[in-house]
């Protein structure tokens, strides 16, 4: 089911369609106004309704549902408001805790819809039989007029992301699509961009912090997952540092697909945080997300090594200072030039390496917590096991040393 922001966008579009349609709706069609009014009342009652508007709405007589045509624009708006009302009424706590700005935005959008519906209805049916007279509709149009000038905008999370019947596979799918897009762009030496590096690092940080919060929820079953929470928080901080590129360094290009997939995943993670604390399915979902993050992290590092080795990073001439300009009289301060030194690249690679290690440590903690043994599981009797030298790091580590540049490709 669509989230609140998607419903508000649909409401906006359908209201515009209603106002823009060439012929005015018939009296039968505007009988859908009753549903619009009923659902608007259900929404406004949650968010400090304007008393004058509520008085008008409550005075409007109810029409029989059978009188409504199924596909009229006003009926469609009524249904959209109905889903919105159901969604908000299913989450009264979230609505109550929403800030003034978002409540105001939501109220304005509902009132703006009422204004347009009332205006169109008034023009279509000045002596409507379904209502005692046009006076109430005219009053409604007047009372909601100011709200029709408020620009439409998204609500912040969590209210903007509320939805009825969240899809159980939502997070898994969002993670899979994100990982696929990230790995694909990171694997391409000619298409990878600084945005791709920064955004994948930031998303890995978000996955780690969401996992840390999820594993910190008390379940009473798996105490070692609680123990993984602190290293995951450290991993999140390390990946945040890896996402931080100095403004004077860049690698330009288009990365549209990754942006869409990253935004989808952000939404899925935000929705995940709103779920029921302690549910085992939440921890399973985060384990899967961390596995995907680990793969993307490995790609991130190998791609960064490749970019640095090939001197594909660009640096601002302005940041290189007057000495560079003296030695390169043709250069302009506003130019970007292929990166002539490796210091910035080394700093980026160091941050990426530290972040990779922090994630590895957190995952080791999650998969092989101290004090637990895979040799003896509950219900099994004692058994012999072969003891060998410890090997706590089964994952291959990529080389971190920089090799000489191969060619001077730059974008």
């Amino acid at each position: 089911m669509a989230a609140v922001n998607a419903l508000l966008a649909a409401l906006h579009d359908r209201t515009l369609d209603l106002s823009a349609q060439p012929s005015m709706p018939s009296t039968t069609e505007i009988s859908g106004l009753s549903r619009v009014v009923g659902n608007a009342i259900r929404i406004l009652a949650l968010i400090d309704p304007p008393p004058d508007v509520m008085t008008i709405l409550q005075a409007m007589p109810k029409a029989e549902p059978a009188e409504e045509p199924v596909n009229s624009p006003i009926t469609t708006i009524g249904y959209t408001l109905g889903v919105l009302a159901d969604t908000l009424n299913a989450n009264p706590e979230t609505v109550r805790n929403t800030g003034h700005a978002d409540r105001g935005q939501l109220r304005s959008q509902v009132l703006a819809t009422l204004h347009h519906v009332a205006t169109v209805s008034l023009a279509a049916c000045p002596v409507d039989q379904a209502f005692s007279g046009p006076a109430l509709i005219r009053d409604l149009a007047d009372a909601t007029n100011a709200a029709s000038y408020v620009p439409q905008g998204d609500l912040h999370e969590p209210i903007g992301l509320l939805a009825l019947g969240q899809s159980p596979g939502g997070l898994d799918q969002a993670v899979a699509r994100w990982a696929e897009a990230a790995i694909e762009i990171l694997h391409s030496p000619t298409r990878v961009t600084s945005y791709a590096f920064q955004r994948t690092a930031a998303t890995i940080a978000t996955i780690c912090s969401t996992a840390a919060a999820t594993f910190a929820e008390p379940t009473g079953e798996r105490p070692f997952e609680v123990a993984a929470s602190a290293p995951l928080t450290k991993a999140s901080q390390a990946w945040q540092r890896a996402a931080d590129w100095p403004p004077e360094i860049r690698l330009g290009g288009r990365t549209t697909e990754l942006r869409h997939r990253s935004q989808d995943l952000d939404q899925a993670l935000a929705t995940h945080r709103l779920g029921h604390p302690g549910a085992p399915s939440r921890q399973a979902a985060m384990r899967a997300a961390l596995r995907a993050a680990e793969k993307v992290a490995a790609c991130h590092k190998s791609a960064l090594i490749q970019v640095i080795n090939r001197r594909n990073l660009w640096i601002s001439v302005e940041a290189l200072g007057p000495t560079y300009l003296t030695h390169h009289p043709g250069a302009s301060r506003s130019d970007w030039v292929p990166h002539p030194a490796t210091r910035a690249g080394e700093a980026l690679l160091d941050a990426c390496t530290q972040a990779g290690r922090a994630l590895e440590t957190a995952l080791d903690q999650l998969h092989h917590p101290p004090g637990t043994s895979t040799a003896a599981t509950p219900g099994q009797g004692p058994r012999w096991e072969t003891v060998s030298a410890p090997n706590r790091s089964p994952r291959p580590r990529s080389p971190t040393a920089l090799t000489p540049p191969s060619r001077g490709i730059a974008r």
Partner: protein
Amino acid sequence: MPDAKHDLADALGHLRHAAHQLLAEPDPTGQALALASQILDIENLLEELDIEPAFVPAAETAADSLATAGRLLGRRPDIVPSKIWPALQTVLVQAGDRGRR
């Protein structure tokens, strides 16, 4: 008034500073990370217009950098893609909220 491309390049430069300032600060709640991610997405949208960022002096705070970027983009409503405005409004409000806390 400087040309439009210059304004957009400067705005992109300020957005880059804002993301950098947010990602570099201690962030126990994850708010700075979330905000920086949204700013990176706005940068990416501008880069789709083939805008090269200018390397501009950093403002004092991320909120100041964002406000400057917003002012510069606001001078060019005719060429800034419409999908940038809601995203920009969101980050400006969030950055302002953080600054007041």
